[in-house]
């Protein structure tokens, strides 16, 4: 399915037509003869692995960058090389992954910013509010016009972003990874809004790498790989497996469980461990009691969490981001002080131990942000593979170069890190390979408990597959794993038990067999609470 399929044009003319787009940044060719054809009034999914060139293509569309070659037509007009203000004037609205809102202003103020209604030379707040509320009603994007951005949830903030572009008259809406921060009910709500915009004649381009969403919502799909457009598919005529194959350029070995994890079909799956049967009489490897962690302003980010994980068990934590998962993991890793409660690792109290001490006591940690915490981007792969283990790799204060490079050689081979070079800086690797370096370091050594936070965020299908199988192997080898992921499917596919975190507490703990997306979704948005102990 690597040859572009003929486009269906019966629904109307092209809203966007990009042809033969070339764009290089120094030696890197981000786009090579890329093509994107979006018909007016459709929801078009743009998919591809990280670094496939999706964002560059959208930056060219939005006028942020000029193509080296190729043409760009919008609504039949050749606008190649236009500017951002041209693009906005022509009705293109881009909603970025990172919100660009002024957090101290209200929703209405943010939406009208730059085009404020004025009466008598002064900002007319009442009119701004009423205009925003009218638009909100019309589109079904529910917001309260007079609330401050700082008080909103991410889902609400995203709605404000979308409204902002619509307020400026956008008819072509580009959404960059819009669901990454949303809970399942919020995602469903977003879908409703998008469909409604489509009915109203709007055109939507959705950038994503979550294939379940693609199947759910899109009409047409463009697949990109290594800067090129490799497939153009009608959603109704394709399957997740076909899309995945086009994305990675090879057949992805899909077992039924892998299909759930990598492709996210909506059915929930059981994940009863087969290789290592955890028995109840076994003492727990990680034991956390009534843990309280304070945020920067003294708020209880983690508010009395109790959990225990047995060797050979994966406990998954689901939840909308920002409900204390990050703080919980960081407190367990020793990166944040515990206000009260206790943490026991293999029976030893480590509540007040340092990061290094916990590490040597058998704690491994895949951090949620590899660019900020997990890697030193300017260090070589070899050096990154000993980050946190530098004490073990030195003798009398001097680094042991021979051990470091033999360790690198072994890990690069075992974890298939590409390109297989020990001296390359981590910055030069793709997201997936960067994550493999982190995984190799944390799992390629003796450990008993693993904290895995967003282990597959922003990595491609091939790497997801690889990392998942490693996590299962760890379980089989009798390790205890605490998994935090924003991907509900990932949690469901890997965990033995699932805990849902809401406002710093466990709202529910369920055996994976009882955990369906719908059940979890209610706990995730706080509609239901059990006050559970995992």
């Amino acid at each position: 399915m690597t040859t572009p399929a003929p486009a269906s044009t019966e629904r109307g003319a092209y809203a966007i037509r990009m042809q033969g787009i070339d764009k290089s940044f120094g030696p890197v060719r981000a786009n090579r003869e890329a093509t994107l054809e979006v018909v007016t009034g459709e929801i078009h999914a743009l998919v591809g692995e990280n670094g496939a060139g999706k964002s560059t293509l959208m930056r060219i569309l939005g006028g942020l960058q000029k193509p080296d070659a190729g043409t760009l037509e919008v609504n039949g007009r050749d606008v190649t090389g236009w500017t951002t203000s041209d693009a906005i004037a022509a009705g293109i609205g881009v909603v970025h992954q990172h919100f660009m809102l002024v957090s101290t202003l209200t929703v209405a103020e943010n939406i009208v910013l730059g085009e404020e209604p004025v009466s008598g030379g002064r900002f007319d707040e009442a009119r701004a509010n009423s205009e925003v509320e009218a638009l909100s009603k019309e589109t079904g994007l529910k917001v309260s016009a007079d609330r401050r951005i700082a008080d909103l949830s991410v889902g609400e903030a995203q709605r404000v972003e979308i409204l902002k572009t619509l307020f400026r008259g956008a008819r072509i809406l580009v959404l960059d990874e819009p669901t990454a921060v949303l809970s399942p009910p919020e995602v469903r709500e977003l879908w409703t809004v998008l469909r409604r915009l489509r009915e109203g004649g709007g055109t939507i381009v959705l950038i994503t790498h979550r294939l379940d969403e693609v199947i759910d919502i899109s009409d047409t799909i463009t697949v990109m790989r290594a800067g090129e457009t490799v497939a153009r598919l009608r959603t109704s005529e394709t399957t997740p497996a076909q899309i995945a194959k086009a994305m990675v350029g090879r057949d992805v070995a899909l077992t039924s469980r892998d299909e759930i994890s990598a492709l996210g079909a909506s059915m929930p799956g059981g994940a009863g461990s087969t290789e290592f049967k955890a028995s109840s009489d076994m003492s727990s490897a990680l034991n956390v009691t009534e843990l309280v962690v304070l945020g920067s302003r003294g708020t209880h980010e983690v508010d009395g969490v109790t959990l225990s994980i047995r060797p050979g068990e994966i406990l998954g934590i689901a939840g909308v981001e920002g409900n204390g998962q990050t703080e919980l993991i960081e407190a367990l890793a020793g990166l944040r002080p515990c206000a009260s409660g206790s943490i026991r690792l293999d029976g030893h109290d480590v509540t007040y131990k340092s990061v290094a001490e916990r590490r040597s006591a058998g704690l491994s940690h895949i951090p949620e942000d590899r660019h900020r915490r997990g890697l030193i981007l300017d260090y070589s792969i070899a050096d990154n593979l000993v980050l946190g283990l530098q004490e073990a790799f030195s003798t009398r204060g001097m680094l042991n170069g021979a051990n470091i490079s033999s360790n690198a050689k072994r890990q690069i081979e075992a974890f298939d890190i590409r390109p297989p070079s020990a001296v390359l800086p981590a910055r030069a690797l793709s997201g997936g390979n960067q994550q493999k370096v982190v995984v190799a370091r944390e799992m390629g050594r003796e450990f008993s408990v693993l904290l895995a936070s967003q282990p597959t965020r922003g990595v491609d299908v091939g790497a997801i597959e690889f990392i998942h199988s490693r996590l299962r192997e760890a379980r089989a080898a009798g390790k205890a794993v605490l998994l935090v992921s924003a991907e509900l499917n990932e949690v469901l596919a890997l965990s033995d038990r699932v805990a849902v975190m809401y406002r710093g507490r466990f709202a529910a703990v369920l055996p994976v067999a009882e955990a369906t997306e719908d059940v979890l979704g209610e706990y995730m948005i706080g509609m239901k609470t059990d006050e559970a102990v995992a």
Partner: protein
Amino acid sequence: MTSQLREKFEEALFPPVVALLIALVCGDLLIMSYGQSPAAVYRMLLEGTWGNAYGFGQVLYKATALTFTGLAVSIGIRAGLFNVGAESQLAAGGFLAAMMGLALSPGVPGVLAVPLCMLAAAAGGGVVGAIPGVLKVKFGAHEVIVTIMLNFVVLALLNWGIANHLNVPETLHTTEIDAGAIPRLEAFIGAFHGSAANLSLLVAIVTAILAWFFLFRSRRGFELRAVGLQPDAAEYGGVSVGGVWFRALTLSGAIAGLGGINYVLGYKHYYEEGFAGGAGYLGIAVALVGRNHPLGVVLAALFFATLSQGGLAIHALVPKQMAEVLQGVVILAVAMSVPEVRRALRQSRRPVAA
């Protein structure tokens, strides 16, 4: 792969070369504005520095102090800290070295007295460096502000002490030290007669080598650089970020302080008010141009020392401000060619997918 390598090489080499050329052309224009021939001035500059033993000795002498301060600043930058206090650390180091030299009795043999004086110098600079370290770790005070303020405080204190209590009447220096003098190069090589160059030079070279080993071969160095690049990642890797900051600023101060031996033990044999003479501030430029690498620092120190001594030599043709302006142009041009600086200016560099 070879083309990639070539590209990397070009990227590392071209910008500084262009920067130097820009500085040269600016120098040409400046010289011509004084109605002189650039060729004659450059020749005179080279003859007065690398062209004769005395001039070369002076270059070595000046480069010695700049190596110490350049290393001090670069250790700080490697840990993500900007130590602007090398000037006062250098002065404090020289002061304590002189105090130690005065305290020891003349009978103490050099092998004992010199290390003791060096230790005093390093301790003096180290204490001045440790203060911003403590304030940063304990109270979050920014090291740039603290080190700038400490320059005023420390220099004023030292000068007050010298001007009012410790000076030889009618002068601004102490009496000569009784022990701990470091021999000059002229004692070994007659051609260096009269030049201030002394064996502190060897101490500077050894310090540069040790700094390299520390930064790139030791565990502490690994951790220090990690903190400088990504403090969050270092913390994740079990490194105490505050501890590294404290140690880096203290070490930085100690190295700058050790630089005080060049003047006090090696040249004048007394502490003289104002002896640092801007070497601490110039150390920032040396570290920047030397790309915070010990070898680069040594080369940059030689370069700036040549400009400084050469400025004196070309005095007959152009005023001394000309050499100072040229030095400024070089710093500006080379700084712009440093990748870190350019990256900070451009900011939008994304990770490149392999």
